[in-house]
């Protein structure tokens, strides 16, 4: 049936609120960021057009390059370590071993605590003088490993990432929900054919959870790219800018009244984020399974 002029008007009216919101809260800010990235602007006095100079400045700044590298490592750790860990736990809990509900709650619990509170707790754990970690190492006779975890050039960044990797609850719940929607009959048939539990997981559960795994990977990697509060709270990018990330870099440019450079780094962040999402979508071209 051909759509009439009135139908198009009706569609437009229905879409208008969404279009207005999308334009106001997404297109306009992004456009504004792109335009102001071409300005030398302190946010207070008049801005001057400098073309691509801000991009030249950030790409010749060692700290910005370190920030990109750290974000990429963080994103990859999220996608390649955190999500597989969440998948593994979800597969175990999906078999409903004794106390599985308690474990599910325990794993998810950190997700309802504020990131700032967690960061403060970990700051105390990693402290060189009174930290739990060094105390534990002392008790088990590994004094030689004691260090100022967040104030050491070599351990600061790994410390930041490692603690964060254990917070898998969010992804675990997504995957667990997907597993629960797989019909029991698939497993019954596989059992009759003699498939072990491991084979059932490898050839039934994981392929059928591809969609949610892809979602988790996207979320984990994007989270890795927009990481800020943990770094800000725990190290503020130090020591020696070794733990700097792109959003923190952007924030510091704003603190220094370099709004043009801040927005240039924002544009780079948007581009990298878009590339990551496109890549994951391409890698996980989710097939449709008939249930």
């Amino acid at each position, binding site marked *: 049936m051909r759509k009439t002029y*009135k*139908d198009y*008007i*009706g569609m437009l*009216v*229905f879409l*208008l*609120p969404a279009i*207005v*919101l999308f334009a*106001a809260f997404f297109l306009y800010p992004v456009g504004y960021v792109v335009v102001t990235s071409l300005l030398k602007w*302190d*946010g*207070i*006095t008049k801005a001057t057009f400098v073309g691509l100079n801000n991009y030249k*400045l950030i790409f010749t*700044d060692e*700290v910005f390059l370190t920030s990109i590298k750290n974000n990429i490592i963080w994103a990859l750790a999220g996608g390649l370590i955190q999500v597989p860990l969440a998948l593994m736990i979800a597969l175990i809990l999906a078999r409903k071993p004794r106390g599985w509900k308690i474990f599910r709650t325990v794993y998810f619990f950190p997700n309802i605590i504020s990131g700032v509170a967690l960061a403060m707790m970990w700051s105390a754990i990693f*402290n*060189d*003088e009174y930290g739990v970690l060094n105390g534990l190492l002392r008790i088990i006779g590994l004094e030689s490993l004691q260090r*100022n975890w*967040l*104030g*050491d*050039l070599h351990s*600061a960044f790994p410390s930041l990432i490692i603690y964060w990797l254990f917070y898998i609850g969010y992804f675990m719940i997504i995957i667990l929900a997907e597993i629960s929607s797989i019909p029991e009959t698939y497993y019954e048939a596989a059992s009759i054919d003699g498939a072990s539990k491991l084979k059932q997981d490898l050839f039934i559960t994981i392929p059928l959870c591809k969609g949610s795994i892809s979602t988790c990977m996207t979320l984990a990697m994007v989270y890795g790219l927009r990481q800020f509060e943990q770094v800000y709270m725990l*190290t*503020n*990018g*130090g*020591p*020696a*800018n*070794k733990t700097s990330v792109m959003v923190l870099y952007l924030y*510091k440019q*704003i*603190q*220094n*009244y*370099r*709004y043009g*450079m801040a927005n240039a780094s924002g544009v780079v962040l948007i581009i990298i984020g878009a590339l990551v999402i496109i890549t994951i979508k391409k890698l996980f071209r989710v097939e449709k399974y008939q249930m």
Partner: protein
Amino acid sequence: MSKTQRILALLLAVVMLTGLAACSKPNTETGTAANTSEEPQKEITINFPSIWVGKDSKAGIMSELISAFNQENTGKIKVVVEEIGDYQAYRDKMRTNITTGNVPDVFTFDNASETQLFFRSDKLMDLSSYLNEGWKNDFIASAIKDVTFDNKIMAIPYEFGVTPVWYNTRLLEKANVTEIPKTYTEFFDMCEKLKAAGIAPTSQMTGENAWTSMLWYSQLVVAIGGPDVYKNGFDDPAFLEAAKIMQKMYQYTTKDAVGATAGVSAGHWINERTAIFMNGPWFVGRLKNEGVNNMYDVVEVAPAPVYEGGKGQEGGYIGFIQAYIGAAKQTDKAKEAAVVKFLKYITSPENVKKVSLASGAMFVVKFDLGSADNVEKLQAQMIEQSNKAPYIVPHFQGNVKPAVASEFPQALSGLILGDKTPEKFIEQLKRADSM
């Protein structure tokens, strides 16, 4: 689509657009562009985001003064305090407010390097006419120069700070140190003795803005290069030499100094885990309240040591205006008058004296102290020493661009951990300065 559905959709769209429009509606209650001249009887609200809250030594007395002001002006003026206890959060909020043109009616700022930028914003109230009526005679003349831009007085200079070295004499005695060091050679000898006695000599930090270590670096730069050192920029060899001394200084501190915040650094000192600290008079209140084992009684303050062969002099001090009070430009004359009335109230010598005696803080507002006034021991020592000082030079952070001040903690941690040589440390600061 039925007619009813279309009408409903249209209504929804209108409601959402109205909602958006409402979001951008200026706040006429506390906004800077409020014009209430048609309703002169209405109580004027002054919005005052305050950092003097929570654990701040001025929190109690400030709260009392503001309550008294509100009481005196019931029905006419009401000062509403927005409590922001975190310095960095406060700075970020004020910066954002000024950038977006949403300047609070009254606010404070503490970074001398930012003042000129704020003044150029054309969003601050020109206080010249009020101060020139005689009000400015209450202030130290040089402080008024600091807030004069384009022949206009754009803010009120308020709290002043000097940053001597604070020594815990009880811990010094444990290490058989009986005299406060006069030179850096004596200072490091003392550090060696303290270390041998199992006491971490100094409190240092590279976290946040590296405040305590930044003050030490400021002292060293002036002790080596003299009071005019900042005129020469980073090419002055004093900056490099001071960096080398900082490396040595970090051999005499706690293990967690790299990455430590102000809370950690000050916490070590007031808990007697370190013997030497550097901070300003505002810390007196905290020392009295939180210092362990009646620590206040055993603390002495002194100017930083002299650097042998340096251009600095004995007794030289680092000092700076720690708080300026700014006010938003007003279009409503009644509100402007109310804001000025409040500013005059909190900067009156009588009230400033109350704040000073209660907190130990120092001010650029002049007031008389009588023999009956209970001046804190340490505050009295600081006043006496700063009066005798051959010069008082602002700290490093106040002498450089915000970008350099922001890069300093990172450059310092790199220097201490051996990631950067002193020369590379200076290069890093120079680069931040040039961007």
